[in-house]
């Protein structure tokens, strides 16, 4: 796949003495949503954190848009137009919603048109524009985290489990947002345990287990192949349906 925006080749990552990623190979095609599936502890979060440089890969290469980035620092990688929504949401709880968004706009100013679009996707952000982010509810915090990643156009957005612990209505809002981003040709790498969400937005899929990618292919194929699903993810997948 020569048109991959991001490709990982034999990536190994250690966290302290623990060997978490054990040779990850992953391709993220341009302009689509790639979903990273797998049970807890399979290395999905570590994969995202290694891409953005918060963990250092000890071995292997990470190519983004034609350049090897695995030796770069986190700010340098982020400046290559990669946004990151971490598993713990990572919003600044002492800052207001406005200040959170303002910091994510690296140009120093918020594009009003784009902000209007975001308000359309996530109306509560308009209501609580001047409130302290720490006082938002869990779902609103997640909306802010995603809004922060898309306030300026980015080439790649890494999102770690945006639906964790959220009410179905908010999950629907997330799905709608991701679909709109997809239409705008933004590439997204999404870690997800909720298979219905994964199926709703995913174009391609990669399944991880024990620090490796054990399956990758089109979402459409996996979505219809119940046997494959069971072989790859066992019961964990059924439980989320």
């Amino acid at each position, binding site marked *: 796949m020569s048109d991959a925006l991001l490709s990982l080749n034999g990536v190994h990552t250690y966290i302290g003495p623990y060997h978490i990623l054990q040779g990850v190979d992953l391709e993220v095609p341009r302009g689509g949503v790639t979903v990273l599936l797998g049970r807890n502890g399979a290395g999905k979060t570590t994969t995202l954190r290694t891409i953005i440089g*918060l963990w250092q890969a000890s071995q292997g290469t990470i190519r983004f848009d034609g350049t090897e980035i695995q030796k770069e620092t986190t*700010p340098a990688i982020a400046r290559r137009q990669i946004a990151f929504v971490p598993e713990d949401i990572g919003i600044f709880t002492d800052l207001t919603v406005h200040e959170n968004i303002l910091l994510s706009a690296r140009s120093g100013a918020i594009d009003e048109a784009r902000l209007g679009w975001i308000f359309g996707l996530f109306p509560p952000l308009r209501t609580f524009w001047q409130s302290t982010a720490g006082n938002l*509810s869990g779902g609103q915090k997640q909306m802010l985290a995603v809004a922060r990643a898309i306030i300026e156009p980015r080439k790649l957005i890494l999102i770690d489990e945006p639906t964790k612990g959220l009410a179905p209505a908010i999950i629907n809002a997330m799905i709608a947002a991701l679909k709109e981003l997809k239409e705008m040709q933004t590439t997204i790498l999404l870690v997800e345990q909720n298979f219905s969400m994964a199926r709703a937005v995913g174009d391609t899929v990669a399944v991880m287990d024990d620090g490796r990618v054990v399956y990758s292919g089109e979402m459409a194929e996996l979505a219809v192949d119940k046997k494959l699903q069971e072989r790859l993810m066992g019961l964990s997948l059924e439980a989320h349906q």
Partner: protein
Amino acid sequence: MSNNLFKPRIERPSLSQVIDAKAPLFLVPVLMLTGLLAIGSGSTWLTLTAAGFAMGMMIFIMASGLTVIFGLMDVINFGHGAFISLGAFAGFTILGLLGSWIENPGITMNLGAVFLAIAFAMLVTGLAGYGFERLIVKPVYGQHLKQILVTMGGLIVTQQLIYVIWGPDEVVLVRPTAFQGSFVVLGAAVEKYRVLAIAIGLALFVAMRLVLNRTRIGLLVRAGVQNGEMVEALGYQLRKLFLTVFMVGCALAGLGGVMWGMYQETITVHMGAGVMISVFIVVIIGGPGSIEGCFIGAMLVGLLTNYTGFLIPKLALVSTILLMGAVLMWRPQGLYPVVKTH
């Protein structure tokens, strides 16, 4: 998808939570009132309170840099005291050159001399802070044990270098004419210099809050204190930000050094390390990383030191230790715990 799913709702804190959050704000008035009751005489109380606020402001100036440095990068600089002394000596050099300005009875010339001395002291300590961060702090970043030891080493070396430049003797720092003597307010004598110290301290506190709340770099500092990793993931270089904050913190120590030196009127190489005891207590009381906590803590320590200094002089320093113990019993993380979001 219906819109009422997004019915604007925010978790309102309950009344007891609000009171709990605001409680530290009442500590200063409560302490002042207790002081008044214990001292009895209104004019004595006023003199001591002014002295307490002046001392608190100076400690705040010196402690504020330290606490932000800690909040941002988990670094406590045990060599901070050396920058206080360095600032005092640098200011002394300038005041020595401007001898005629100081002796001039006009307040303009006096203020000019003080501000030039402060500016030079901040320049010197800011630049020294750059060297200190690169040579002493950066190589052991993230390793606490080594960090404590190596910054202590930095303290020793910097103190010795001050000896090399200014000699081993204590020197007298003359207050400008306009700031000698006292005002009489409501029958209480209030030293003029203390009024200046309070004014500079308040101005700095307001300026700091403005910078932290209204500027981009201030926003970044506040964000970085909470979640440095995410600041980096947004594309900002935390290390550069930290270096800047470190230099500003050292420059503030220099500013505090000039103020403290003029307050004490004699300066020695060890004056910084001496006042650092109060600075550390203030940082711990306030909650390391918190500017507001640092400010309240500094006022408490300043007032308490002066009240007990009058009532039971021998227990002045011990009383602040007891205050620290009491605050930690109440809030183990300090008055305003900094919430780390990762």
